[in-house]
């Protein structure tokens, strides 16, 4: 790991100003991805801005018809929160599938969303649920937030403060995980709010999370796993690596989508 200057701001404003002042500086939340990446020297930020002392960034609350989760809320908190379990049980289950228990004890929702790993789980939940990413300066719809591999719409000096999820009638996540890393080889988050049905896929796209519109159209006719039978997903633009070929991932998208719809109906 290369040396960095370490900063402990007490407010979001201070954090944003430090981030703006330190070019290529990085926000440190749980550190479960950033620190191993720095150890491998895949990242060498000259400054780390630790959010650990910033108050008011962690927490879960209902606001009207939305579930609002603070940026430094840990995965274990989302997975075990009674509020989340009641409002969007599929989101709590998804959080409980991230990594392993030790990673869930420190990893944060804001970190996961800001990192936008192409195999991370939260980006799929944000996109399917139509979440809004709220920063220190603006509100960004998930649709515009995830812009590519490890790329987001965040500007320099912009800090995620919270994420707002509209409460939907049905939602579930199905994940075919790599047995070693627990990252999604394919993860499908399905959400239904009235006639608005969204299917978001992570782990498969070579450009990161995306919506499977063909599956969405099929589910609009009837929200049932049967509607997905015979609907094929193209392997174009999907990842191929030592774990799975693009064709296998395309097949898994259909299978995981059916499982997610079945689970969503059962909730």
């Amino acid at each position, binding site marked *: 790991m290369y040396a960095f*200057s370490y900063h402990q701001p007490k407010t979001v404003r201070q954090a944003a100003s430090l981030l703006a002042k330190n070019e290529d500086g990085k926000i440190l939340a749980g550190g479960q991805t950033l620190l191993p990446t720095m150890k*491998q020297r895949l990242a060498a930020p*000259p400054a780390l801005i630790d959010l650990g002392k910033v108050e008011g960034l962690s927490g879960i609350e209902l606001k009207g018809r939305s579930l609002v989760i603070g940026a430094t809320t840990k995965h274990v908190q989302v997975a075990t929160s009674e509020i989340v379990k009641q409002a969007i049980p599929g989101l709590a289950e998804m959080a409980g599938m991230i990594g392993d228990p030790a990673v869930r004890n420190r990893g944060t929702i804001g970190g996961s969303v800001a990192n936008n790993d192409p195999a991370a789980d939260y980006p799929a939940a944000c996109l399917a649920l139509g979440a809004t990413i709220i920063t220190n300066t603006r509100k960004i719809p998930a649709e515009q937030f995830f812009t590519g591999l490890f790329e987001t719409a965040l500007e320099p000096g912009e800090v995620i403060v919270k994420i707002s999820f509209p409460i939907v009638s049905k939602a579930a996540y199905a994940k075919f995980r790599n047995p070693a890393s627990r990252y999604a080889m394919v993860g499908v988050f399905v959400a239904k709010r009235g006639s608005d049905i969204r299917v978001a896929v992570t782990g498969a796209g070579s450009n990161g999370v995306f919506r499977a519109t063909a599956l969405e159209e099929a589910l609009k006719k009837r929200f049932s796993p049967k509607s997905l039978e015979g609907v094929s997903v193209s392997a174009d633009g999907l990842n191929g690596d030592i774990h799975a070929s693009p064709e296998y991932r395309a097949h898994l998208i259909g299978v995981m989508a059916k499982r997610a719809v079945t689970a969503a109906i059962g909730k």
Partner: protein
Amino acid sequence: MTHSNDPRGASRRDFFKISASAAAVAPVVASTALHAQPEQKPDPFAPVEVDLVVNGQRRRMALDARTTLLDALRRHAGLTGAKKGCDHGQCGACTVHVGGKRTLSCLTLAVMVREPVTTIEGLAATDGALHPMQQAFIDHDAFQCGYCTPGQIMSAVACVKEGHAGSADEIREYMSGNLCRCAAYPHIVTAIQQAKTQMEG
């Protein structure tokens, strides 16, 4: 805690005074850190103040900001129970409890830690009686080479306390972050089941 006054309110001079007298302090205090001008860019090599409570004992150190909790424990506090396996958060050999929650000490900077730390050295009772989980690992031969064992035991204690030791399958899922390359997994599961009844009984 061994001191009653809050260290975080102490002056920098006080901190280094105490640091210099503590047994577990690394000699890394650079003079630039003490005389740095406020306008200067922060020196990334200047030591940062690390204030830990480990197994009920206060440990104050001045460390390179890059120091992980694992290295702070092993190299600077002399607690070598937590093991360095992969150093990338994949094997779980470095698992300790931070604020009662199992944490990968290799993926946590020492300077980030604000809650009390418990390591394998702090698990047994003060009279030396082993924790039920430690005894269960011995009773069931739940290890071969033993390198992963401190991490396994710390994770196993948390697994039971979290309420995730209801069945063998549940134990396997919630112990998935701790690898054992000797593959003592079946005995580890049996040991956790035994310790669970004692911990809950």
